Every structure is written in structure tokens, then in C-alpha cells.
């Protein structure tokens, strides 16, 4: 099971999906495009624990986190 975590005012919203399910994968990719299109940054963790920013949907990513665009405080 893979999941996408979207940070929001409720803490976060988690979308679980089965990467072996073609329909679920397409829906996850659509969500990825929609969020990044709205300015969200997407990041994944590597097996070693390093974090990397991703520009395109990775169907093998087990966990992707999305956060809204940064603003100066």
C-alpha cells in the first residue's frame, strides 16, 4: 500500500492506494498533477532516509508528502 500525504489546515489528509491497481495508480497520478499544478511541492524519502523533491509522479514511491508553496513570514 502506498500513500500520499497532503498537508492542510486539518494537519494532513492521507490518500492510500494500491500501486498494483491501475485505476488507483491513475487516480494518484492525477492527484499528484493537480497538487503540483496548484503550487504544492512533492517530496519522497529514499530507502536511506534522505528526502528528495520530485517533479513528476513516481509510481514506485511508497510515501509522497505534499506541502503548499512557501511564503515569507
Amino acid at each position, binding site marked *: 500500500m502506498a500513500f500520499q500525504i497532503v*498537508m492542510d*489546515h486539518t494537519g494532513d489528509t492521507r490518500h492510500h492506494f494500491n500501486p498494483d491497481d491501475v485505476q488507483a495508480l491513475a487516480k494518484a497520478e492525477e492527484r499528484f498533477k493537480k497538487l503540483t499544478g496548484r503550487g504544492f511541492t512533492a517530496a519522497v524519502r529514499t530507502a536511506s*532516509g534522505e*528526502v528528495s*523533491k520530485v517533479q513528476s509522479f513516481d509510481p514506485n514511491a511508497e510515501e509522497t*508528502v505534499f*506541502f503548499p*508553496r512557501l511564503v*515569507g*513570514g
Partner: protein
Amino acid sequence: MFRFQRSLLAVRIRIHALRQLYRKVLGEITKDARGLQLMRDWLSPDQRAQFDDSGTFEVVGCHSGKRYRIYRGTAQNVFEIDEAGQLKLGLCFTPYGNLVAGDAMLAQKIALETDESSALAVANRFLPRGRINAHG
């Protein structure tokens, strides 16, 4: 009889208000705790140990190699630090929207570690006056 009904109504209103307050407070605690848990899960082992020890953690900027310390909070909580670990400069940048502290801190970490120059481009600078110049 009328007085009794009025006092009963007042009690019900108070109970309802208390329930609402309880739900609100519990909800806040829950989302704060979830944000901190998510952040903690995404920290490196070293950062996690720092956070558990002092409530802060350090990150290295991907472009400059500079070190930053992130304190608990949503704004005015990121500082560039010198070689001795002393605060040099405050940087104020945060994700748009009303996010909880754990989420904001995780976003700040990811931004500095993966796209430092973009984070610095939006950040406002401030002097770290009043902030304890040590961990915690």
C-alpha cells in the same frame, strides 16, 4: 415549575458548550500531534535524536552547505547557525495556509535540503534577538 425548566435549559446549554469546547481542544491536540509525528517520521536518525533531545534539529542547505536550526513553530523559527552552533540570522518562511507546527517544520526542512535557494528567495530576514542561543 417555569424556573426549574429555565435552569434545566441553562444546564443543557452549558453542557453543549462544554462538549463543543472539548471537541475543539481535542481536535487541536490531535492535529498538532499528527503533524509532529509526521515530521518526526521524516527526520533523519540524527535529526530525530536532536529533536527528541532539544526540541530543535539542524539541516544542511543543499546549495550552500550552510547549517540551519529549526525550532518548534510555524514562523520565525528557522535560523542560520555558525560553526560554533550560534544563531547568525533568522529566516522567516513558511508554507502558505494555516498549518500545524510539525507540518511547517517538515516543509522547512524539505525546502532547505532540496531547494535551498528558492526557500531563501522568499524568506524574510531578522536578527535572532531574544531567542535562546542554544539548543531548545
